[in-house]
């Protein structure tokens, strides 16, 4: 990290590298990794993995990809923790929302099963 703040005054175009400066190989590596991870998650579908294996693989590749993009491409790994936490902690609230709504969704599903009952129940009623 360099002195981005002290550059308020006009600087000649030959100014030294400022801001986020990382070797280009870092970005190329992440680019390649994202390709590989995307390919893997595509293979999950291609080979018709099912059940727990499918879920866990999809989520694993998804979080790895998201983490690489945020940490390296968006430079989060080099930011001060005050910013990192301000962005990432509120995002955690979404996990709670997801949990609550999946609970709600299952409840709705069960309710529909009970009240929009299949024909079998109708038949039993008539007898």
């Amino acid at each position: 990290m360099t002195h981005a703040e002290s550059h308020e005054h006009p600087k000649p175009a030959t100014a030294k590298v400022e801001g986020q400066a990382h070797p280009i190989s870092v970005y190329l590596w992440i680019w390649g990794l994202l390709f590989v991870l995307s390919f893997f998650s595509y293979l999950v579908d291609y080979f018709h993995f099912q059940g727990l294996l499918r879920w866990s693989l999809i989520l694993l590749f998804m979080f790895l990809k998201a983490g690489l993009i945020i940490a390296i491409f968006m430079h989060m790994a080099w930011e001060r923790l005050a910013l990192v936490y301000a962005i990432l902690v509120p995002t955690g609230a979404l996990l709670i929302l997801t949990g609550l709504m999946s609970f709600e969704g299952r409840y709705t599903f069960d309710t529909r099963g009970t009240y929009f009952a299949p024909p079998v129940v109708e038949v039993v009623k008539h007898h």
Partner: protein
Amino acid sequence: MAHDATTASGTLAPSEGMQGIVADWSSDQRAFKKVPWGKAMMWIFLLSDTFIFASFLVSYMTVRISTTVPWPNVSKVFSLTVGGQEVPLLLIAIMTFILISSSGTMAMAVKFGYQRDRRKTALLILATAAFGVTFVGMQAFEWTKLIMEGVRPWGNPFGAAQFGSSFFMITGFHGFHVSVGVLFLLIMAAKVWRGDLDNEKPGFLTGRRGNYEMVEVMGLYWHFVDLVWVFIFAFFYLW
């Protein structure tokens, strides 16, 4: 103490870790030290955008869990026929690789921007925009294909009616983000090419002087669009 962030950077290193968080947030001046305000504001905008996309994805999850009608076989619906053979999710996979590549070129544009390499920065931003346009074009193709097959926001021939509304809402909103991003990429490429950022010229919408942090802020938005696609790809297309 209040001055160390602006004037004396270098003489007094700000504390790190948990202590650094407390110090930054209680410094009575600015919480996000060493971060240009444009970047901090972009991050906060992206956080709010995260919640918007999360709302869409969570509603999609809720309707998918609660519907009693079987969900369409996504792998089949989004397959392409190549040489008489059905390849599942082919178009979506290509779109994913295109968007990742656009993120790669954008990240390098930011790097060359800070190195004051005007030519490479502008060309890489243009390449990013080109990838973006390709992505939106393929999405338009996909929409056309599905609409011709009878998919509507209120129903479709493959299964649960909620499939259509989720699909058009989520991919539509994402595609809109990509389109807006392409527009701003083109503007930014022009600014870089003309040397507005080197000469610190103010933009036409703002009196702010141009600088290469703008490329990084633009990059944050673009990477975010890629990031959202990672989640859409996993939850909507693969689940």
